[in-house]
């Protein structure tokens, strides 16, 4: 059963990723991204990382995707129904990407074969790690979010001063 769900998710992720590469319509591009993100969340659930899947859906599918849609509405004001994105294909880049795929697979495959399966741990353990060993990166990520917020407001509202 889990193998069936895995391949369904893989097909959904593949369709979404191909929409990102091949779509002429900017809204289909955003929907392709949404499909990829939701499929990734599904993979996280299958691998035993339930909390991460929840965060992915809330932060990415709920937050970043809405940001992308807002950016599209602010920037792309083409004629309704008309394709607004240019699609170019380069065989050399395709060969390069296939090479990167083969290289990454060759490097990571022996690592994946050596390891034993476990789960992502409970939310209690996650909280202990975040507020224990990883406290400094956790706080720094909060600082980074604040800096990013200030930077975006500064860049977007720069003309009004």
């Amino acid at each position, binding site marked *: 059963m889990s193998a069936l769900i895995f391949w369904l998710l893989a097909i959904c992720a593949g369709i979404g990723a191909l929409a990102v590469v091949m779509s002429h319509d900017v809204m289909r591009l955003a929907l392709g991204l949404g499909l990829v993100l939701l499929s990734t969340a599904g993979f996280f659930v299958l691998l035993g990382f339930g909390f991460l899947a929840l965060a992915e859906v809330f932060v990415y599918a709920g937050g970043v995707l809405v940001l992308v849609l807002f950016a599209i509405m602010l920037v792309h004001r083409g004629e309704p129904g008309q394709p607004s*994105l240019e699609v170019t294909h380069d065989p050399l880049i395709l060969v390069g990407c296939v090479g990167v795929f083969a290289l990454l697979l060759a490097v990571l495959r022996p690592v994946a074969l050596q390891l034993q399966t476990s789960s992502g741990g409970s939310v209690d353990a996650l909280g202990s790690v975040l507020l224990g060993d990883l406290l400094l990166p956790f706080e720094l990520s909060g600082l980074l979010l604040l800096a990013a917020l200030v930077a975006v407001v500064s860049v977007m509202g720069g003309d009004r001063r």
Partner: protein
Amino acid sequence: MSSLVVSIALFCIGLYAVLTRKEVIAILVGVEVMIAGALLVLVMLGSHAANGASIHAVALLILVLAATEAAVGLGLLVAAARRLSTTCVDEMTEVRG
């Protein structure tokens, strides 16, 4: 093993989108697909680790960093579209306009 193939394929499809697309929004979406693939590799390998909670926490932090990157990138896109009246990277030829 199949999840490794799927996640690396996602990464490479995102890479192809980044290298072939001309619009900034499409490049940003390609970067997001690449990050999703990379995060999936991390979680897939981390799901085999002894201390799963540490990998869980690191993946959560990477998710936050990726969301920050997307927010800053989209903010820059909107600002560039307002000032340069284009969203095509080939037409953005001036560093200081």
